[in-house]
């Protein structure tokens, strides 16, 4: 698994559970696309995008390494 782009891995790690956050739903979707591209070979399992009390969005991703 490679890690090409650090900007989407702000408080995250490339194994276990990762939470992608963003101010908009589209921003979270874009971060997901970037994470997926950077995790070549790994299986990414996504939950449902949720909106937190402060209005921001988050997406839980469980990463399974091959």
């Amino acid at each position, binding site marked *: 698994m490679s890690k090409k782009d650090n900007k989407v891995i702000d408080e995250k790690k490339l194994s276990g559970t990762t939470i992608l956050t963003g101010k908009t739903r*589209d921003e979270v*979707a874009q971060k*997901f696309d970037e994470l997926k591209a950077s995790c070549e070979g790994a299986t990414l399992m*996504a*939950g*449902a995008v949720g909106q*937190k009390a402060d209005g921001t969005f*988050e997406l839980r991703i469980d990463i399974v390494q091959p």
Partner: protein
Amino acid sequence: MGTLKGQNFRICTYDITAAKYKVIGMATGCTVNLQNNTESGTHKDVVGSADMPVTVSKSWSVSCDSLNVADAAAMLTAIKSMEPMTLMWDETSTTDNQTREKAAFARKGSAYLNDVTFNFNDRENSTKSLQFTGSGPLQAVGSSEATDVIALGSYTKGQFVRLFLSSDNTAAPATVIGAAKTLSLHVSLTMEDATTKDTTGEWQIQEPTGLSYDITTGALVRSGDTITSAVGAKGLSDLETIHETGTPVKWKISNTGGDNNRTASSTIVSGSCLLTQLAINAPNRQNADYTATLNGYGDYTVAA
């Protein structure tokens, strides 16, 4: 000593990595059922008419409802794994509703997650219902066992999680159900009593033997069914065609955004299914709608 409020009676699962228990987040209710399974013990030597039940085994189960669907992938993976997990219930602190208070009634035991239902309904917070079947004995919980406080979760509005279908079992499921109102995914394990004479104690041993799932979606019927060609979504006529063909199609449930909330982003779960029932409802002076029930065809895949 006052009456315990429901928010301070929490179901927890054991996190092996953290070596701590964690509450089922955003829970809205839970039920614990402790069962003494009985047989009639009455016989001719007993005087009187009333029955005298005798306990022959014990079993237990837990159900819990929650507003947290962020962990949908984890739950769908957990039930598919058919592996037992450790459950606990206890009174929790009123300061965070999560830290255990080590009540005398706290119990723990091994259980299978045997039933999961997700509801993604339009303009509603999505929900999750979990059912666990205990396997083996319940035990009192030691004072050293700790809970890990989890962060506040997030809400998922149902219109942003949608069902996509293909027209056959080869093409990718790229087309959303148009004008949809409801979506429900239900996964269930068949559990069998695996208790034998070798089993010590009265507690039943339960083991999973098979998995099944179904998807139910409801949508409004558009006049003339022009929605299909005009805006790129499956309508009633498409579902009728799938029904008439009578063979499996591919499906996925994805997070969505964009125009009409129809642009798929990360996929939560996908697979193949067979449309088993299509019910069209047209009550007088009300919107006509339909409900489609799709039964899982082979394993589902949890991959984004």
